[in-house]
């Protein structure tokens, strides 16, 4: 019986369409792409690295305030791709949750627990009509006590997976194709290789060579499990190393 969705609201709130799809969730994915930024994350043998574009739309803007890399705790970082305002809400809530966890249970919130918490919150927005899904894909990185370096990606649908490498944003699919080729034989990247693979993946997919001020890089390393944003000088060193290697 093709009466349709009832009142045509399946495009406006998260109820099912006749094909069993959630249009609002699909539109949220489009909103992530509409931000025009691409991000990449790579997990190595003893480190994880995330890279994203740093587009400052106006020269009068204070560059230091434009960032998509957020520390959630000292040891966990979050790279948000998509709508900045939604990202800030997510980060605020995640920081609160991680701090409460540390207080309640006496040990640091493990990265997969945080990823699951974010994903479960996103799922609630896909099931309750009163809140729209967030237009953000979150990549979380950290060193787990048991499992070592971890990279998780959480999306507006509430999915979350651990990744060996992944991408989000405008050129997501191209980047994933590039990374699949690089990681095909399960390589065990060193810290330098991890960072350089991530940066060169971004350069290749966007087909441009970056200046150190045009990208943001965040890392965690087993030998120093604190989440750190690389300085412009460190980014420069890596860019030079890449251009010499000609990856």
């Amino acid at each position, binding site marked *: 019986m093709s009466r349709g*969705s009832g009142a045509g609201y399946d495009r406006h709130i998260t109820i099912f369409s006749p094909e*069993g799809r959630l249009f609002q969730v699909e539109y949220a994915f489009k909103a992530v792409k509409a931000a025009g930024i691409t991000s990449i994350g790579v997990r190595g043998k003893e480190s994880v690295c995330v890279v994203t574009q740093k587009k400052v739309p106006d020269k009068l803007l204070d560059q230091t305030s434009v960032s998509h890399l957020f520390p959630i705790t000292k040891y966990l970082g979050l790279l948000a791709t998509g709508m900045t305002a939604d990202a800030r809400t997510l980060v605020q809530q995640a920081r609160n949750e991680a701090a409460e966890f540390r207080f309640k249970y006496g040990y640091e919130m493990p990265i*997969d627990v945080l990823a699951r918490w974010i994903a479960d919150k996103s799922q609630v927005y896909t099931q309750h009509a009163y809140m729209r899904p967030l237009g953000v894909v979150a990549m979380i990185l950290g060193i787990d006590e048991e499992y070592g370096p971890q990279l998780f990606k959480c999306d507006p649908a509430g999915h979350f997976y651990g990744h060996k490498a992944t991408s989000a944003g405008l050129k997501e699919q191209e980047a994933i194709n590039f990374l699949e080729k690089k990681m095909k034989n399960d390589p065990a990247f060193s810290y330098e290789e991890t960072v350089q693979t991530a940066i060169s993946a971004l350069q290749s997919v966007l087909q441009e060579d970056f200046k150190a001020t045009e990208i943001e890089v965040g890392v965690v390393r087993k030998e120093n499990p604190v989440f750190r944003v690389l300085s412009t000088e460190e980014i420069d060193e890596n860019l030079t190393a890449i251009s010499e290697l000609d990856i």
Partner: protein
Amino acid sequence: MGDSQYSFSLTTFSPTGKLVQIEHALTAVGSGQTSLGIKAANGVVIATEKKLPSILVDETSVQKIQLLTPNIGVVYSGMGPDFRVLVRKSRKQAEQYHRLYKEPIPVTQLVRETAAVMQEFTQSGGVRPFGVSLLVAGFDDNGPQLYQVDPSGSYFSWKASAMGKNVSNAKTFLEKRYTDDMELDDAVHTAILTLKEGVLTPAEVDDYLGEVE
């Protein structure tokens, strides 16, 4: 639940008496990855396809088959995030039962409570039905049991069942192969064969068998 602005049900009757949102939820289930279950004389087996979106995904971070209690497991077809919610709620219900009665929750009771949650979301204000069907496999004092729970909240006990894509092929195959006095090993073998019929490539079956051995 939900905001007071949405204190009306989004799942309402059509003029022909159908609950259209539930039908759409079933469509979402039908386009999900295949899963199936078989009840044997001495146990139950549940199995599912595990196709990940890319080789870059760490397959150890994904577990589609989950434990609700030490003797009850569950698998789904449909939307993964919705499944996580149901697993969490069911685990809590099982634990509450155990706290009260100091014994493991019987399979039928856990299935009934989970189904009640799913029904709630077809009637409460401001929410949509769950986009998953569950296959609950358990072993208790009544022996091995297999239940399928649908987005509407209705549940049935099955000797063997399948859900998701290729469901008609899978069920035809199961009907042919099922016998009441099957042993668990046979059932596991049949489950893999059924997935292979419509779903897995021979290489994927060999991979899995290699891992298990």
